[in-house]
C-alpha cells in the first residue's frame, strides 16, 4: 500500500514538474529548470498579467550594447511553418531585417528595438498561445502579424482583452470590421482588403469588356474572401459569373475544374489563390488550350509563381500592390523610393528572386508601429492612439491614413494591375 501511495504521489509530482518546467522555460532565460528546486523556478516566472505596459526594467535583457536606453519590445507572429509558410517566411525575414536596420541607425528615439518573433504553425490555437506569450512574458508593446486571416481573427479577442495593439498582416476585411459593422479598437491591418483589390480587378475587367467570368478559387479563407467580394461587386459592374469552381490548396491538378469552366465558355477566367495551386491552374489552363485570358489574384505576387508556372505565367494579369512594378512607376509616385529601397535591401539579404508582397505587408506593420512609437513612447494605449492617427504614411502596400472608422487605411491607389511578361512584372495596360 505504501508503494502505491508513493507511486501516486510521484505521478502527481511528475505532472507538477512538467507544468513548472513550462513556466521556467518560458519565463526565465535559462533553458531548463532545475527539477530539484521547482518552487524557485516558478518564482522566477515574471509577474502577473496586470503589469504595466511599460517594459519593466528588471525583466528586460541587457543584450543591446549599441543603444543606451531600454529596448522597445515588439512582438511578431508569422506562419513560418504549415500551409501559410510562403507568407510567414518572407514576413519573418523582413522583421529580422528591419530590427537590424533600425538598431544600426540608432533605434527609435534612441531606444533599440527588439522584435520577438513567434511561429504560429499556421494554426489558430498555437497563434493564441503565442499571442499570450508575447503579451504576458515578453511584455511587448504591440504585435505585428499574424500572417493568416483565421489566426488574426482567433487572436482578436485576446489582444482586445489585453489591450495590446495588433497590426495584422492578413487580408480579410473581417479582421478590422466586426460583424455588426463596428471597428475593433485594438486591431489594425496593412494588406489591402480584398474589397479594394477586387474593385480594381472588376474595373479592369469591365474596361476590357469581359462580361462572362469563369471563377476559380482555393477553398480556404483567402479564396473565400475573394469570392465573396467578387460576387458582391460583379453585378453592379455588369459582370456575370458563368462558372464558379473551387479547389483545395493542396490539390495537384485542376483540369477538371477548368474543363467545367471552359464548358461554360467565359470571356475571361479569374483564379483566386496562391502558389503552388495558383500556378498549377495557369499551367493546366495552358495545357487544356484555353484561349481566354487568365487573371489571377495578388496571391501570386512573388517570383515563385513565375518560376514554377513557366511559360504559362506569361500574359497573366493580376491586381497587386505597387511593389512588384516599382521600377516602372513614374518618379512622381510617392511610394517609389520606399519600394525600391525595400526591394534592394531584401534581395541583397535574402537573394534575388525572394521578393514578395507578403514581406511588404510585414514592412508596413513594422514601420506603422515604429512610426507611432516615435510619437507615443512605450505605452500601449498611447501607441494605439498614435497608430489610429497615422496619416499619409508611405508604405510598401500603399499610403496609409488610419482613422477610427478605418483600421486598414488604404484606398484604391494602393492597388494596380500587373502583367507578367517574359519573366518580369510590368504594369498592365
Amino acid at each position, binding site marked *: 500500500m505504501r508503494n502505491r501511495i508513493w507511486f501516486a504521489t510521484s505521478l502527481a509530482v511528475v505532472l507538477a514538474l512538467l507544468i513548472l518546467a513550462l513556466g521556467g522555460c518560458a519565463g526565465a532565460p535559462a533553458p531548463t529548470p532545475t527539477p530539484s528546486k521547482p518552487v524557485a523556478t516558478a518564482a522566477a516566472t515574471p509577474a502577473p498579467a496586470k503589469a504595466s505596459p511599460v517594459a519593466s526594467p528588471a525583466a528586460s535583457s541587457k543584450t543591446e550594447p549599441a543603444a543606451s536606453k531600454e529596448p522597445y519590445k515588439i512582438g511578431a507572429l508569422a506562419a513560418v511553418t*504549415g*500551409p501559410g509558410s510562403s507568407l510567414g*517566411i518572407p514576413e519573418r525575414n523582413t522583421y529580422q531585417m528591419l530590427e537590424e536596420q533600425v538598431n544600426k541607425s540608432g533605434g527609435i528615439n534612441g531606444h533599440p528595438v527588439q522584435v520577438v518573433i513567434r511561429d504560429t504553425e499556421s494554426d489558430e490555437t498555437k497563434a493564441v498561445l503565442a499571442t499570450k506569450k508575447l503579451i504576458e512574458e515578453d511584455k511587448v508593446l504591440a504585435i505585428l502579424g499574424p500572417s493568416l486571416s483565421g489566426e488574426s481573427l482567433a487572436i482578436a479577442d485576446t489582444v482586445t482583452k489585453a489591450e495590446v495593439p495588433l497590426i495584422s498582416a492578413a487580408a480579410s476585411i473581417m479582421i478590422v470590421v466586426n460583424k455588426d459593422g463596428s471597428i475593433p479598437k485594438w486591431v489594425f491591418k496593412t494588406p489591402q482588403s480584398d474589397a479594394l483589390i477586387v474593385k480594381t480587378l472588376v474595373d479592369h475587367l469591365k474596361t476590357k469588356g469581359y462580361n462572362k467570368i469563369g471563377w476559380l478559387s482555393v477553398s480556404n479563407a483567402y479564396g473565400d474572401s475573394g469570392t465573396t467580394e467578387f460576387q458582391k461587386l460583379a453585378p453592379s459592374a455588369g459582370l456575370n459569373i458563368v462558372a464558379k469552381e473551387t479547389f*483545395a490548396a493542396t490539390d*495537384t491538378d485542376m483540369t477538371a475544374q477548368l474543363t*467545367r469552366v471552359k464548358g461554360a465558355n467565359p470571356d475571361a477566367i479569374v483564379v483566386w489563390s496562391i502558389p503552388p495551386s495558383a*500556378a498549377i491552374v495557369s499551367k493546366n489552363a495552358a495545357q487544356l488550350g484555353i484561349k481566354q485570358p487568365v487573371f489571377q489574384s495578388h496571391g501570386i505576387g512573388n517570383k515563385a509563381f513565375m518560376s514554377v508556372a513557366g511559360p504559362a505565367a506569361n500574359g497573366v494579369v493580376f491586381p497587386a500592390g505597387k511593389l512588384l512594378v516599382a521600377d516602372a512607376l513614374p518618379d512622381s509616385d510617392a511610394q517609389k523610393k520606399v519600394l525600391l529601397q525595400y526591394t534592394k535591401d531584401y534581395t541583397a539579404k535574402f537573394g534575388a528572386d525572394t521578393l514578395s508582397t507578403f514581406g511588404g505587408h510585414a514592412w508596413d506593420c513594422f514601420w506603422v508601429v515604429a512610426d507611432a512609437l516615435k510619437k507615443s513612447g512605450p505605452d500601449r494605449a498611447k501607441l494605439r492612439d498614435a497608430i489610429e492617427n497615422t496619416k499619409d504614411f508611405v508604405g510598401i502596400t500603399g499610403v496609409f491614413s488610419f482613422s477610427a472608422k478605418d483600421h486598414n487605411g488604404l484606398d484604391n491607389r494602393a492597388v494596380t494591375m500587373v502583367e507578367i511578361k517574359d519573366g518580369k512584372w510590368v504594369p498592365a495596360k
Partner: protein
Amino acid sequence: MEFYQQVLQYLVTGVTLGSIYAIIALGFITIYNVTGIVNFAQGEFVMLGALIAISLYKNQVPIVVAFVGSVMVTTLIGAALQRIAIRPAKGASTLTLIIITIGASITIRGLGLITWGPDPYSLPAFSGDQPIAFGGAAIIPQSFWVFGATIVVLGGLYAFFEWTLLGKAVRACAINVSAARLMGISPSSMALFSFALSAGLGAIGGVVMAPMTLATYDMGSMLALKGFVAAIVGGFTSTPGAVVGGFLIGILESMGAGLISSGYKDAIAFVVLFLVLFLKPNGLFGGRDTGRGGL
C-alpha cells in the same frame, strides 16, 4: 465543349492523378507487406525525390542524372530511416512503429522547409508542354510520363517479385516471416530493403510528377493520404490492387469535381470508397488478412 469531351477530359485527368496515387500506394504496401507498418513518412519520400531532383537540376546536372541521383539519395534516406528509427525500437507494437514514422515525417518535413523554404519548385516537363489532342480532350506529354512511370514501376515490381531471388525473398517474408527465416532470409534485412525500395518508389513518383504538380516541402501529406487510401481500397497487400485503387480514386476525384461539385470532390470519392469497402470488406484485391496489422 461537348459533354462527352468533358467526361473524356475528366477521365484523362483522373488517370493521371490516379497514376500518381498508385505509385505512392505501391510504396505503402511495399513496407506494409514486409513489416506490417503503415509508413506515414511515405509522402516525405515523394517530396524528397522531387526536391532533390530539382536541386540537382538547378545545379546544372542533366535531368536524367538528376532523376537517377535523386532516386538513389532518397533510397538511402529510406534505408537510413529504417536503421535509425525503426530497427532500434525492438519489441515495439506496430502502432508504436507507426507513430515513429509520424515523427519521422514531421522531422523530414521540417528539414525540407529549412533546406528548400516554403516556395514551390518545378522541373521542366520531360518532353515539352505541348498538349496532345485526344478525342477532344487535351493530354499533356508529362501525363504519359507519369502514367508510363506507374506502368514501368508496376512492371518492374512484378518482374522483381516474380523473377529475382531477392524479390522472392521479400515476398516470402511478407507471406510468412518465420518460414522465411527458416530459408535463411533475414527479416531485418528485408525490412531494410523494403524501406529503401519504398523510398525509391516514392522518389520516382516525386520526380515524374514534379513538372505537373510542382513540388513544395509539404506536398507529402496530401499525397500520402491519397496514396494510403488507394492502398487500402486495393487491399493493402496487392500490387495490382494498389494501382487499381490509385486509378479509382483519381478518376472518382476528377469525375466528382467535374460532374458534381469541385468543393465536395474528396467527399464524393470517400463515399464511393465506403460503398466499395462495405461491399468488399477486404478491398478490391485483398485476399489475405487485410484486417491485420497496423492500425
